[in-house]
């Protein structure tokens, strides 16, 4: 007597069959899984999806533009370094584009002379 042959014969006889509600249980688990797997996109109702998509795209574009456009400084490097040392007279000389009036010029010269 071969024990392995007997075992294999015995194993061949042992078969479980699906119960009557097996299919329903599989489908119920399938539905459960689908509900769990639905993401934020599936929560948004179908009718509002295009609006939602456009809004998302616009927000994304705004951030991309913000990232890509370089920050322009309000003033140049030289201006910034000189500013602390500039006297009102120097400020007129270097920064003001308009010529000061005669009275102001005289005041400035007087100030220079005093120094």
């Amino acid at each position, binding site marked *: *007597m071969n*024990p*392995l042959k*007997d*075992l*294999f014969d*015995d*194993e*061949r006889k*042992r*078969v*479980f*069959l*699906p*119960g009557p509600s*097996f*299919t329903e*249980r*599989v*489908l119920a*688990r*399938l539905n459960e*899984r689908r509900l769990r797997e639905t993401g934020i996109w599936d929560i948004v109702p179908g009718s509002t999806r295009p609006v939602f998509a456009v809004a998302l795209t616009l927000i994304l574009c705004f951030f991309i533009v913000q990232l890509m456009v370089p920050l322009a400084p309000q003033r140049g490097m030289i201006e910034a370094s000189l500013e602390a040392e500039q006297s009102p007279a120097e400020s007129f000389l270097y920064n003001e584009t308009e010529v000061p009036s005669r009275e102001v010029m005289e005041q400035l010269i007087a100030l220079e002379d005093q120094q």
Partner: protein
Amino acid sequence: MEFDRELIVRAQAGDRSAYEAIVNQFSAMVFRLISRFFRSREDVEDLAQDVFLKVFARIDQIRPDENFPGWLSRVTINTCYDELRKTRRRKTAMETYGPELTAEKSVAPTEPDTLGKARLALQGLDPKLRIPLVLKEVEELSVEEIARTMGLTQTNVKVRLFRARKKLASILGSRGKQK
């Protein structure tokens, strides 16, 4: 096995009745295959459910001209293999790190008969060896069919079958000597 390929197309389109038809048509086959490796009805049913969930999750990957029953058998065997490996790892971990059952040791266990010993030896085999052996000896599949189902070469299947038989003979031989 006769199979309506239209079912796959309908299932891929999300038709619920097609899912139902697939489960109805193939559940017996899946149950039979899993029964070869698991002895409790609950385990068999749980695994069969897992198999169908996996199949439906990947239903888009199946071509309508593909051999669906063969593909389903492969998913079933792979699921069994994963579960057997998990069970084996848990068992090893329990034996290594689990509490010592001193109280139970004092009670002499009933000696299994010859069939029981052979069954224990088969269950103790590595799933890599056990699955091809069971498919060959119990399911009576050919080497070619086993290779296709397990995704192995025919040579690899033959090597595994040879090792499985040798290992079983050695386990049964050593147990016989111990007695």
